[in-house]
């Protein structure tokens, strides 16, 4: 397991470096000029030149990249072009919204989809099994913002139970307020995410149900539930875990939509604003952090899969 971890870590670092280069180069290929956001429609040529110097647009791309990389090695994400504020504290503040949002939505989606997936697979011949399957199929096609708007009009505007938007100015100082603000966004993301996850859980369970080993276990006298628990769970979990990592990463990256619908000061809305303004340090900062998060999720996903599925460990040592 240790050599595997080392190799997997090296792979992580290399991927990260390649991603950094790609982020930097792709940003510079965008049309437009980051100094524009600093200027008004009365700017004089001198003011334009000064703004370009301020954002470093008068230096070569290679020079800009090496400066940035040197900063990055010191864990310094630089300062925003527009606000002149250091990038990292702002990202940290926004992670306090995006991370709880993602994790809670993920947790809720997991619970919903495991229950719904199992029920719809095991009871696939009953009307509610079919109903769950149908609803989840429909759910896959529903856009996040639509669910968000629907929940807002029902729970905020109609019933006035929960706030329609925003996040407490004192962050988590009053956890109840923060949780109230996140309730509808979490449900929104969880509902949409659980639709596709339910499909995965359902199909994995159906595969297990039709498998030879389960039939053998039953033939050897195991009860239905016991057979499923002892043999089905592990086998069924493998493909689901593989997809979970991807789902978690997608939710984290896809927060931009739900953050916009609910006016949440999260990472997604920061990225959106930064892109509109060509604020390179902010865009790069958000992308560095989210790339790292996604790569780490992938890393832990792979490791978890290996722990659950001994076949992966064996086949690897066999080919070595």
């Amino acid at each position: 397991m240790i050599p595997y971890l080392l190799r997997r870590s090296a792979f992580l670092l290399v991927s990260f470096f390649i991603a950094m280069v790609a982020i930097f180069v792709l940003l510079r290929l965008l049309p437009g000029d980051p100094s524009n956001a600093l200027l008004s429609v009365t700017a004089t040529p001198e003011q334009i030149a000064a703004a370009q110097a301020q954002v470093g647009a008068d230096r070569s791309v290679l020079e800009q990249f090496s400066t940035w990389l040197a900063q990055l090695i010191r864990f310094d994400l630089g300062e925003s072009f527009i606000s002149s504020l250091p990038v990292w504290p702002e990202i940290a503040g926004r992670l306090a919204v995006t991370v709880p949002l993602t994790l809670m939505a993920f947790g809720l989606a997991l619970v919903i989809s495991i229950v719904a997936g199992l029920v719809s697979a095991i009871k696939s011949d009953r009307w509610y099994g079919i109903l769950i399957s149908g609803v989840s199929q429909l759910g896959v096609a529903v856009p996040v913002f639509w669910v968000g708007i629907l929940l807002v009009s029902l729970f905020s505007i109609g019933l006035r139970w929960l706030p329609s938007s925003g996040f407490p100015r004192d962050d988590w100082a009053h956890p109840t307020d923060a949780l109230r603000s996140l309730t509808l966004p979490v449900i929104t993301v969880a509902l949409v995410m659980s639709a596709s996850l339910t499909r995965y859980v359902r199909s994995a369970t159906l595969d297990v149900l039709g498998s030879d080993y389960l039939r053998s276990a039953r033939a050897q006298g195991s009860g239905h539930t016991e057979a499923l628990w002892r043999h089905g769970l592990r086998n069924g979990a493998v493909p689901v875990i593989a997809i979970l990592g991807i789902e978690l990463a997608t939710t984290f990256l896809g927060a931009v939509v739900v953050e916009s619908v609910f006016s949440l000061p999260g990472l997604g809305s920061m990225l959106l604003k930064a892109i509109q303004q060509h604020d390179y340090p902010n865009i790069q900062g958000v992308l560095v952090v989210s790339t790292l998060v996604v790569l780490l999720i992938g890393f832990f996903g792979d490791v978890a899969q290996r722990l659950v599925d001994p076949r992966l460990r064996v086949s690897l040592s066999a080919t070595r």
Partner: protein
Amino acid sequence: MKKNMAFVALGLATTLLLAGCASGQDSSSVSAQDATIEIGSLYEPQNLSNFGGGGQGVTEAFNGNVYEGLYQLTDDGSVQPLLAKSNTVSENGLVYTFTLQDGVIFHSGKALTSTDVKGSIEAVLADDSQSARKSSFGAITSIETPDDSTVVVTLAERSISFVYNLSYIWIINADATDLETTEDGTGPYTLDEWKRGSALSLIRFDDYWADPAANEKAVFNYFTDATALSNALLTGEVDIVTSVQSPDALSQFIDNADYVVNDGDSTTKEILVFNDRIAPFDNVDVRKAIYSAIDTKKLLNSIWGDYGTLIGSMVPPTDPWYEDLTQVNPYDPELSKTLLASGGQPNGFEFTLDTPSYDPHPIVAEFLKSELAKVGVTVNINTISSDEWYTKVYKTQDFTATLQEHVNDRDVVWYGNPDFYWGYDNPQVSTWVAEAEAAITTDEQTAKLKQVNEQIAQDAASVWLYLYPQIVVASSDVKGYPVNGLNSQFFVYDIVTN
């Protein structure tokens, strides 16, 4: 399935529990002076400086609330003394002597002196200044401070707008630093907290030199999505929306006793800008032909319904030199065809319209395309980002025609600058603009700028499609808010809850 139902019940219970924990204070239990006013806006500042990139958000939140000028442009468009108690002007109109108000202190506790005023004006004039107002103060030759409460400014030539222009300069503590993230002004509020991406709150400054603010706290809540902003007003999370940007959301508030929809005056003009330097738009008849081919009334109606105003020139009704010129280039497709012929384009022509990708420009572009097709002119819409617009159209002036909104008041004078991006070059107009600035009386200034106004309309220098409405929607529980959006200001100090 039991488990499933139990889960749903658990989820619902949690939701109810959270809903039960009331978070907001009940506004009726606090007296009006202690009230917190929640304002909803789409314009979050990018930084807290009005020198570079702060955008209209910083003007909205800070102008008159946190920072004050020697003069103030009031909500009805007039210029009133603020930190300047009085001023005298020398016989030749070149030397302005300002006496400052007594007892003014900055939020940091320092007393305002003439040195701070000098420093604030010089910061705008500095070589590296990114201030949009820099060019308005080119005539200043010296600023002197004979004593702590007197500032003497000498100009190279007469500048009748000088006092008006001073209303744009914030008087900032000359010793203050970090002005992109903090403030040190003299206004009725200090900055309480700015939580980026979410809200900026102002709190009453107890040592304010004049009448204190009528409320204790004003919070600007920022939204990126207009629907979310409307929802926040519907749910009572905000009391006022500073500027509604689409009429779609209004139906929920019109004829609803709980809300007031205010139709105020704005200074924002939607303009079809020609590059007047190049063919075919260097020809007056062709420009007039385009103007007459567009049913601006129908356009305004399709975008804003019953809101907004038609204008026949660059000047909005709140400018002193406004006159109704909407009939100079009437909507008349037959006249348009005649003008096209006399302009040397009897069979029409084709041009590219650089269209900023954000609202309302794409819709306006489509409308123009269909209108102009009726007189044989083909419009190719080229959608560009605001950033590309700035590089392509503004900086390099590499365009044939474009759409843009111009937000400032009194900005007709830009037609006197032949180097401006639209390239309108009429020496007579340039002379009038210069003469207006050198005028001795405001009557004379007004008369000259009216001539400018009429001439640019005669020349169809651009097509002034319409003036945006300024719609403030508020809960009927609050009053005392500004209703006109002049230069994006939003004074909050008079707002009270019933």
